């Protein structure tokens, strides 16, 4: 009905379970608070124009606020400003805008931290990091920010010199066998692992952008009889991913909480609409950190983690 408060959710895509869960979380919370949720998504990760169009539509539609996971964190800023000028509150979810103040508030996972945790864990697990032969599995050649943050976080955690922290692939450390692209799905993971093993059958550490890519890589490892030989780390904490941790297909994964982000975002807009109060960031950070937890059944000293059983309680999708 036209009288209730409308809130828009704009995600990068809606084909990734992560965003599907985010939408479910937002829908549930909106229903609870008696608000109307309209959701939008780009066609592919990086589809910036569709997100701009979505913001324009929300303005035209008279929404009270916008929750957005931006595909292009700095290009979106003028469109976000336009919305704010029109009196909407804009909250960034999952991915901070550049600059972070461009949004009224940010509820996000720290993707760099997520990478760092699995990097540290991998380093601790292998012990002698000088023997590492690392395969890197990224999203795609356009290097969207999540991909860069996780990749660079992982390398930092593992103890490798980053070069330019704004891009992957410029590192000169010989322990990196190669940077592959996977489109963040099983197919790409499978093929990339085949390529990596053909290049260097001694690969023993594998970073993956997300759990579907890790699952694909695991199929190759099974084929090559190398399942125990490679330390596989990933990011996301979706239920199939955590299950794969329990089954030993993935060594450790950084879990994020999209449902929580979405729910918090909807609540914040409600508060803004009703009382005009803006949410506060986590002390010491420029954003409200919804937290990230390392899920593994083989904890490493000095790296806090939860078990896969605990992870399954909290998982999404």
């Amino acid at each position: 009905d036209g009288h209730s408060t409308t809130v828009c959710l704009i995600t990068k895509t809606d084909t990734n379970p992560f965003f599907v869960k985010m939408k479910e979380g937002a829908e549930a919370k909106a229903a609870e608070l008696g608000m109307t949720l309209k959701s939008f998504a780009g066609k592919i990760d990086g589809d910036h124009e569709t997100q701009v169009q979505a913001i324009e539509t929300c303005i035209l539609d008279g929404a009270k606020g916008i929750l957005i996971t931006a595909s292009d964190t700095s290009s979106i800023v003028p469109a976000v400003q336009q919305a704010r000028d029109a009196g909407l509150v804009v909250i960034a979810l999952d991915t901070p805008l550049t600059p972070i103040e461009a949004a009224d508030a940010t509820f996000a996972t720290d993707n760099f931290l997520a990478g760092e945790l699995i990097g540290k864990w991998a380093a601790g697990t292998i012990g002698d990091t000088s023997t590492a032969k690392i395969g890197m599995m990224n999203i795609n050649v356009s290097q969207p920010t999540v991909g860069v943050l996780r990749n660079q976080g992982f390398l930092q955690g593992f103890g490798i010199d980053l070069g330019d922290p704004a891009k992957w692939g410029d590192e000169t450390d010989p322990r990196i066998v190669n940077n592959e692209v996977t489109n963040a799905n099983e197919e790409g993971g499978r093929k990339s692992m085949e390529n990596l093993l053909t290049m260097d059958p001694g690969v023993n550490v594998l970073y993956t952008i997300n759990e579907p890519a890790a699952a694909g890589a695991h199929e190759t490892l099974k084929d090559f009889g190398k399942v125990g030989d490679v330390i596989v780390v990933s990011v996301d904490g979706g239920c199939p991913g955590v299950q794969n941790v329990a089954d030993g297909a993935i060594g450790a994964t950084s879990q994020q909480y999209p449902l929580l982000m979405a729910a918090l975002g909807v609540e914040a807009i409600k508060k803004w609409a009703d009382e005009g109060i803006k949410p506060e960031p986590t002390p010491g950070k420029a954003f409200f950190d919804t937290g990230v937890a390392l899920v593994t059944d083989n904890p490493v000293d000095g790296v806090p983690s939860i078990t896969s059983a605990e992870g399954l309680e909290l998982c999404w999708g």
Partner: protein
Amino acid sequence: MSEQSANTDYESASSNLNETVAEFEDTRKGLIGKLQHVLHVNPALVPLIVLVASIILFGMLVGQRFFSPFAMTLILQQVQIVGIVAAAQSLVILTAGIDLSVGAIMVLSSVVMGQMVFSYGIPVELAILCGLLVGLICGVMNGWLVAYMKLPPFIVTLGMWQIVLASNFLYSANQTIRSQDIEDTAPLLQVFGTKFQVGGATLTLGVIFMLALVFTLSYALKHTAWGRHVYAVGDDPDAAELSGVNVKGTLMSVYILSGLICAFAGWAMVGRIGSISPTVGQLANIESITAVVIGGISLFGGRGSILGALFGALIVGVFTLGLRLMGADAQWTFLLIGLLIIAAVAVDQWIRKVSA
């Protein structure tokens, strides 16, 4: 020889014939007959009708908001980039080609404009020229491979798409140039974003550029020799060659123009989104082809009107905005747009058949 004269004698029987031009009566009278004729002569009217019908449809479904000058001009703004690129695509498709590299050329051009200013400190006017030049050079390469090396346009532009896009990522180091910085240092880059108020409606220079471009090309295609040659080349290149068209030259001109227009689209893109981002425009090829085909231009070349492509882009824009305003969620919107693309072309075909 006696046989000769006998042979052709009977033919002279036709000589005292009555020299009036044959006239058959046109039995299709009245308004409908006239309408059918008008439609037949102006094929771009068909997508226009579909466009108007869909505006009315969504107006009824969505209500007042949809008819506001704000909404109407918003659609124009939202389709401006696709509209400009679709103009380039139309030219290529009219020659029975296809250009998959349009989006990549567009992005690379805008990135070059930005880098020239921000990395090398070149004056913005010159930087823009460089960007346009890059688009033009991409066009030259496409054209040379198609016209002189006689490679299939699909493959040439598929290859160029990958090459140009990868160059773009490598060259830009995947960095976005921020809107704020552009505004401060080189506002000319954003000039296509300049707004005009025209009776409650907001138009941008980019929208006006798109309209002017389409009308200019429409004129050139219809009323100049070059335009006729473009159609002839698309229709049957062998016949065109035999009847005196410089087929290679025409193809070159088309691909070069397409590259240049894409570079302008890149410039207009800066006006639209403010910043310069190497990741935008990845769907521009499929979107522009969609607009062109919905607009009634044949993928086999030689048939259709560039105005149709503009209407095609607008039809998709109307559907998209309309469905969003109706609150359809993203996947449902995609699904419905898929349905509507088919429906729009089906209606188009049907009108053509009725008016044939």
